[in-house]
C-alpha cells in the first residue's frame, strides 16, 4: 500500500461516509423533512385504488 493508495482510500471512503452522514443528519433535523422523504413506495396510487375496489362494501339494498 503506497502513500498514494492511503490518500486515495482515506479521501474516497471519508467523502462518501461524510456525505451519507450529512444527508441523514439533514433528513433527521430539518423540520418536516422525514415525513416528506420517500424511498421506493410499493403501494403506488394504482395499487391503493385496487385495494379500495377489493374492500367489501356494506351497502344495503
Amino acid at each position, binding site marked *: 500500500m503506497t502513500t498514494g493508495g492511503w490518500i*486515495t482510500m482515506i479521501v*474516497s*471512503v471519508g467523502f*462518501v461516509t461524510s456525505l451519507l452522514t450529512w444527508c441523514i443528519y439533514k433528513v433527521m433535523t430539518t423540520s418536516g423533512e422525514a415525513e416528506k422523504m420517500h424511498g421506493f413506495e410499493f403501494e403506488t396510487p394504482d395499487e391503493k385504488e*385496487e385495494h379500495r375496489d377489493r374492500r367489501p362494501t356494506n351497502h344495503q339494498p
Partner: protein
Amino acid sequence: MIAYFISLLIIGMSICWAEWTLGRYAGRFGVHSSPAMFAVLIRKPWAKYLGVLGIIIPIGIYMYYVYIEAWCLGYAVSYLTGDLGRPGVDAGQHFANFVGATKDGFAIGFSLKQVGIFVIAVYFLNFFLIYRGLARGIELFCKFAMPSLIVIAIIILIRVLTLGSPVEGKPELSVLNGLGFMWNPGEVAQQLKNPQLWMAAAGQIFFSLSVGFGIIATYASYLTDKDDVVLSGLTATAANEFCEVGLGGLITLPAGFMFLGAAGLVGQGTFGLGFSVLPIVFSHMPFGAFFGFLFFFLLFLAAVTSSLSMLQPGIAFLEEALSIRRRESVAILVFLTGMGSMFVWYFSQDLKALDTIDFWVGTFMIFIQGSLMIILFGWVVGIEKGFQEAHRGANIRIPGFFRPIMKYVAPAYLAVIFVLWVLFNLLGWNGQFTGAEFNPTGYVLDLIGSPTVPPSTVARLSVGIMILVAVFMLVITSIAGNRWDNLSTHKQEGNQ
C-alpha cells in the same frame, strides 16, 4: 477513483436529479410510465417511442435479476444446510455447480444444491408480493433488514481487515497488499488518458445509482410538490456510494486478492467475485456459517425490494397504455418476464444468456436512456425550469455550478463516452488513428460470428427475446399514442 468520482459528479448526480425531477413533473400530467412521460414532455408524436427504453430496461434486467436473487436465497439456505460454511468447500466450484454454469439446463434441478427450486420460489414470491400488495410489509421489514445488512457488512469488513496473510506460505497476499491492489493509484496521468477507464467508471456509476433504468422517474411521478426530490436523490446516491465505495471497496477486491492473488482475480466476473470470494471470507470467521446465512439472506431481501421496483414501470405502462387494471397488468408481466427468466435459467452455461442481456440491456441501453433523460432535462424542459421544478418542496438547493454541468457538460461527456464505448467495447478499435484496426469484441462476435468462431445461438436468442419485448412494447405504445399526444396538447392549451 478520480475518474469514478468525476463521473459521479458529472453524470451520476446530474441524471439522478434529472430523473427525480422529470418524473415528478410528468406526474402532474397524470402519467407514470416512461413513454407517456416522453410524450407529454416533448409533445411530438415520435417522442413516446423514445420512452419505450424506460420500459424495456427494467423488464430486461428483471429477467435475469430474479435468477441472481435466487442465488442469494440459495446461498443462505446452503449455509443453513451446511453445504457452505464447512472447511474444505471449494467456493468457486460450488458457485459453478449451483448456478449451472457448467452446462445448459444444469440449473433446472430441484435439490437444495441447485438453484432451480429457489428460482421458482423467488419468482412466485415477487409476483405474490406485487399482486397482493403485501409489499408494504416488506418495506417495513426492510427498514430493519437494510441497516442490519450494513452492520453485517461492517463486521465482515473488520474480519477482512484483520485476516493478516490468510494463505499459508504466501505472505505477500496480505491485507495491506490487498488494499493496495484496490486503492494504489499507479500512473495517474497515464491512466486518465485511457478512455477505457472513463467508460468503466461511467458504466459503474449508472449501475451503482440505478440511473438510466427508467425506475426512478416512474416512482417520482407519484410524488407531490411538497416532496423533496433534491435531498431524496442526494441521500439515495450517498447511501449507494457508502455501500459501494466505503464497504464494497474495502471488502470484496482486497479479500479476493488475499485469497486468490492478483492472477486469480483475472476473469472473475462481477457476480462470480462476490459469490466465490465472500464464502471464503466467511469460512475464516468465527460463526462464519451464521454470518454467511445472515449476509446472503439480507442480500436476498434487498434484492427483492429492487426487483419489485423493476416491475412498477411495466405495470404503470400497461395500465396506462391499455387502460387495464393493475391485476391484469401484473398478469401480462408474469407471462412476459416468466418467459425471459426461464430462458436465462435454462441457458446457464457460462451464464451466457444472463451476460448477453446484461451487456445489451444493462449497459448499452442504460447509457442511451441516461443520455435521453439529461437531454430532456437540460434542453427540452430547459435548465431554468428544470431547476425550478427540482426545488419545489426542497430544503436544500442544487449547487449553481450544476446548471452548466447538466446542460452542457453531462450530455457532451455522455456522448463522448458512448462513442468511445462503441469504438472500443463493440468494434474493438485498437486506439490508433494511423493503422487503425477493428476487431469486434466477444459480444459482437457472439452475434455475427467470425471466420474461426461460429456465432453463439444463445446470445442470438437472448438478443432476439429483447427485440421481441421491444416490438411488443412499441405496438402497445402506438395503440396508446393518440391519447398521450392529446393529453399533452390539452395540458398545453390549458396552461395558455
